[in-house]
């Protein structure tokens, strides 16, 4: 049903604005699936996730500018680059715990923004870099917004399926064990350090994919897109949507992107609305909106399930 809706969405002809909003939401959701595994399964929050989206985006823009490598070939490069950087930023997490590590992610994000802003022609400084268009593939023209939408949707579905497979695999269970009790996890033979770095890399890989999509959709990227503020938004979305259930990240991205549009809130009002929304969710729905919906669904249909 959801799949049918995603495919039919452009056919509703809601106009250019809604279609581009849907693309942005899709890209955001892709990045959020990474954070969803990291936070929802392994229990490690980050408020610097946008930095890895940025590394994916800048990698794509730089290899295009310097070596003429186009979108399709740059995909693995962006993914690997973001994953590697995320793994490196994760190294301090082996020595410091929870709250301290969150601050490190925030600092890295701020640091990256400074580096990008002062990177001269290499990073395009504060104005950023222009990006070309996506090369035709199988005769599909990606200059059309609708086709970019379908591309993003396809990647989103792949991310969703990947997340589902991870959650239900021994690997996903291992991450949950680390989330629940590190000391016990070690005692049953789990190499915590390896898995922590591993999950940062997985999380970074999703962010890198989101980054290259964003770069080629926007056709222009700049440091401000990847600073602490967008990172905080990602953290907000994952908490609103819920990180442990498969639809949580998608719901979080949709709520935060579409609600202000539908309710016609200006940016200041929407921030107040997010703040209130987050408070309500934290107090009433600790598992996020996705867990809340699942709970309501189960309560409404107890008989039909039996």
């Amino acid at each position, binding site marked *: 049903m959801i799949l049918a809706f995603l495919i039919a969405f452009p056919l509703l002809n809601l106009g250019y604005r809604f279609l581009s909003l849907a693309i942005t939401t899709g890209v955001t959701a892709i990045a959020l699936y990474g954070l969803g595994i990291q936070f929802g399964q392994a229990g490690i929050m980050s408020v610097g996730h946008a930095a890895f989206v940025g590394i994916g985006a800048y990698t794509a823009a730089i290899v295009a500018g310097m070596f003429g490598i186009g979108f399709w070939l740059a995909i693995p490069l962006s993914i690997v680059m973001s994953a590697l950087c995320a793994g490196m930023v994760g190294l301090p997490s082996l020595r410091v715990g929870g709250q301290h590590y969150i601050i490190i992610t925030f600092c890295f994000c701020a640091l990256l923004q400074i580096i990008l802003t002062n990177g001269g022609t290499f990073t395009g400084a504060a104005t950023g870099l222009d990006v070309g268009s996506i090369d035709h593939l199988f005769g599909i023209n990606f200059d059309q917004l609708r086709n970019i939408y379908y591309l993003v949707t396809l990647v989103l579905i792949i991310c969703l399926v990947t997340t589902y497979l991870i959650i239900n695999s*021994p690997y996903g*269970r291992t991450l*949950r*064990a680390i989330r*629940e*009790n590190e000391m016990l*996890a*070690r005692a*049953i033979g789990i*190499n915590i350090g390896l898995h922590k770095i591993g999950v940062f890399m997985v999380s970074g890989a999703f962010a890198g994919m989101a980054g290259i999509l964003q770069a080629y959709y926007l056709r222009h990227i700049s440091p401000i897109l990847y600073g602490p503020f967008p990172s905080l938004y990602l953290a907000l979305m994952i908490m609103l949507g819920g990180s442990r259930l498969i639809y949580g990240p998608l719901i979080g991205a949709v709520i935060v992107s579409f609600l202000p549009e539908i309710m016609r809130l200006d940016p200041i009002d929407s921030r107040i609305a997010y703040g209130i929304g987050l408070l309500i969710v934290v107090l009433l729905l600790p598992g996020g909106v996705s867990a809340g919906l699942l709970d309501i669904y189960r309560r409404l249909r107890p008989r039909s399930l039996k």
Partner: protein
Amino acid sequence: MPALEVIGLQKEFGGVTALAGVDISIETGKIAGIVGPNGSGKTTLFNVVAGVYKPTGGRVLWHGKDITGKPTYEINRRGLARTFQQAMSFSGLSVRENVQISYEHGRSHSATSQRKINWSSPDEILSFVGLDRVANELAGSMPFGNLRLLGLALALSTNPSLLLLDEPAAGLSENESEVLTNLILRLAEMEIGVCLIDHDMFFMGALCERLIVLNFGTKIAEGPPSIVLNDPSVVEVYLGIEK
């Protein structure tokens, strides 16, 4: 050669000496007990052996190989498992998932030849300890006695040849305690070594083939229960000074 050999083990926390040079050797397939008053260093001994803390001095040998200061996960993978005095679990997950995680790691990390029991599924382990009926419950919502059994199940799933149990009987009812005793006896029959800690001299005397008594981080007696329980220095520690 003993399976586990601890030589001159010392551990200090700041100014506190938890272990002041302890020598112990433990064989598999036998039940050994460690007794001693609160704060005598029993838990610390397990923690140092299992790699949670690095010792200040001394060595830990496992089948003759030096494993002193190796990471906890690696020591477990070599067949040395332990439970915790606080009865730990992955409290937000179901009982079955708890055991499944441990089972999957045990499977991938232990060689088939090294396994004393070839568990065929997590459910088999749950039935073995008697938790099959509560498999779908949230681990954290279980009563204390079941948590103790879950802790044992988690350790067992990793295919150990020696189990270190930290006060497995503490807080258990008489019935639960009997269930536990039977389990421990069955483990010994399967050639899995058990080394357990408890305060209760009578419980330990009945269960263990050998007792080791610690006091202030030093071993003050060792041997069969009949001899150790009549040792004047042990009686002194447990019953106060008798003249």
